[in-house]
């Protein structure tokens, strides 16, 4: 019963709440039903609009090093969840999980979670 109330409230809130719209469609950009995890080193963190990006050097499934583009949220949404432009820095070793992009050669993920083992810093959420 409690679960049902929570679900109803969540749906209701999603219908009523105004949102900052994205410029692209996530369903058209990523395989939303798949996840992929990479582990590597941050080479760039772009805290920006329309969406932030974290570039991570990490191996692909073949062991080849790639520059992964991990798409994150817009600045306002990240600030709301406690992330700012200093939260991540080049050189940070991170573990990132996300939805893989539909274009394999882009080496792209939609951020679902990021963890920095060195100090235990973590973020997880839904990028809109």
């Amino acid at each position, binding site marked *: 019963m409690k679960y049902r109330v929570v679900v109803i409230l969540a749906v209701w809130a999603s219908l009523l709440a105004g949102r900052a719209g*994205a*410029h692209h469609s996530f369903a*058209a950009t990523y395989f939303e039903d798949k996840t992929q995890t990479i582990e590597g080193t941050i080479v760039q963190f772009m805290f920006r609009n*329309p969406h932030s990006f974290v570039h991570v050097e990490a191996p692909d499934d073949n062991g080849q090093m790639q*520059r992964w583009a991990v798409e994150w949220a817009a600045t306002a949404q990240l600030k709301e969840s406690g992330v700012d432009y200093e939260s991540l820095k080049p050189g940070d070793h991170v573990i990132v999980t996300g939805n893989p992009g*539909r274009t*394999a050669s882009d080496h792209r993920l939609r951020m679902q979670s990021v963890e920095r083992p060195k100090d235990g810093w973590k973020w997880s959420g839904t990028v809109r």
Partner: protein
Amino acid sequence: MNGRPRARRLAAAVAACALVSTAAPAFAQVDFSGAWGARLHEDNLERGGGPEMNEFEGLPINAADRMRGDSWSASLWTVPEHQCIPHPADYGPNFSQLVMWSDVDPVTKDVVAWHTELSWMNPVRTIWMDGRPHPPAWAPHTWQGFSTGKWEGDMLTVETTHLKPAYVRRNGLARSEKAAVREHFIRNGDILTIVTIVTDPVYLTEPYIKSRNFQFDPGYRMTPYPCSVDVEIDRPAGEIPHYLPGANPFISEAAAKHKMPLEPARGGAETMYPEYMERMKTLPTATMPAQPAAAGTAAPPASPAAVGTPARTPER
């Protein structure tokens, strides 16, 4: 003799009516001023996370637009020239909080123009109310176009032309610069409804009509939305991600996912109407396509063009 006082009274009444009719507006103009919160009751999924690949149902597109949609890749948004494009006037009301205000002539007190601003990318529109004509066809086209408005009772009707080529859906379906947009702004208490009717001789066979609701939100304050162009995905200059004809591997994916036939997902005016439901019952359910490998996996792509292998084509 008795007729003269009556005639004088009648003349006085007519004069009084004439005076009142010139002193007051012909009808009460509705005030749209203030902040409005987007309400996403209609088409929620499409307006939130966005439509799926090749999901064209309910749209009066022609074959040319279907091909535009089939050849489109979402990676196009990462190209620098595309990163900070604001939603055009006919698409923007899908999202975002809305703020409206008017310019009033200090002498006549007439409303010269209405303005709208949306929170996402902060695009500002001007709707001219002073009767000025639209510019000639060769005049500059912009994302917000050129708009004029007039009152039809309590409804503000707006005509917009001179829009840059953009899209009718965020999955590649195009809308041309030849399109004309008619909007109706209707206020019922604290609810504002904007009805948008898009006609496009290039890509639409019938008008595309949609309505979007907003709720008065006096506590809302518009925030800046600076957008910066950066290298989101490192790719050669001039590369435009796309699928060649017949090479898009996702065409039946949305239809199969929702257990519906492929034909309605391909769009067209007939898919807008209730009677099309009967035809859908006679069609086979779409099958899920074999998906190309996700990024970073070892499997090779199904075909070079199918997964956006770099290809150089001139940008439209």
